[in-house]
């Protein structure tokens, strides 16, 4: 018995499966891209973390 059984439905629907795969990969890429852009737009994110950071202290005084 063959270890891998290639059913007829796999071939018949390969186009559809490929289309869905491309859509899913595209969706992941778009979500990743949006996340990167959105995070970059926020700018540098840092806060007081038990250590005095002069640049934040200067900003807080303005």
């Amino acid at each position, binding site marked *: 018995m063959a270890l891998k059984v290639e059913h007829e439905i796999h071939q018949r629907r390969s*186009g*559809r499966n490929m*289309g*869905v795969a491309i859509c899913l990969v595209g969706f992941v890429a778009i979500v990743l*891209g*949006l996340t990167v*852009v959105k995070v970059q737009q926020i700018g540098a994110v840092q806060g007081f973390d038990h250590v005095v950071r002069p640049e934040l202290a200067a900003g807080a005084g303005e």
Partner: protein
Amino acid sequence: MTDTTIQTHEGEASFGDYFALLKPRVMTLVVFTAFTGLLVAPVPVHPFIGFAAILFIAVGGGASGALNMWWDADIDSVMKRTRKRPIPSGKVAGDEALAIGLALSGFSVVMLGLATNWFAAGLLAFTIFFYAVVYSMWLKRSTPQNIVIGGAAGAFPPMIGWAAATGGVALESVLMFALIFMWTPPHFWALALFMRSDYDDAGVPMLTVTHGRPATRRHILAYTVLLAPLAVGLGLTSVGGPVYLVTAVLMNAWFLKGAVQIWRRDEGLAEADNYKVEKTFFRFSLYYLFAHFGALLADAALLRAGFGGALWL
């Protein structure tokens, strides 16, 4: 015992059939006008966010197309032009089209909201609702003004593009909406005059049938007369520029001339030259819309290149 029973489907749907549910040809207009609305807006948008916004607007437009095909499957199977669509041809089940339409509607609205803002997402949701419910379900089969109402759904994309960039509505985006809204009736009625449409068989009231062809010719002229000042007026707002104004003045002058010619003709004259004027007017109307939005893009590009004010001198 067999685990599955596989039936061979001769007319089984391919990925392309599911894609056809989204009315890709209509989508090109949606993409182009939404892109223009987004690009001419005064607030710059990151290119990737702009790309994602246009994509989700296009998917939303496609979703409304799938819902429309689900609802109109009965009349699509009667008309020659639509008989080969995925549902009447038996390739995609009606329930599948409904599921795809609903799923993509929710997906596109939520993703547009997350990518840009919830005002733009709300406008997209309203557009889908307007096309699928107000136009397709309520009014398409009950009034010969269906073309006018359907035109509103097609007119929203530049407003959504603008809203994606700015988060709101402005005179400029309303005028872009008005341009497509007022352009749609003369465009489709010119087609209805020379296409011996099979809408009758499907029971869809068309102005050419319910009110007659002379009334349709008068309607084309009336909408074209109303369209011209709106189109030129858009050029006097912040998104207008020399390229747009010259384009709008020339194209509207020609469009008005064509509408007057159509109004003056009767059926005998039209049949004698095989609807030459009506066909030319229809073909020109396609260039008309692309030229107006293309000119807006050109002016926006010139402005960004630093030629905005210089060209007026």
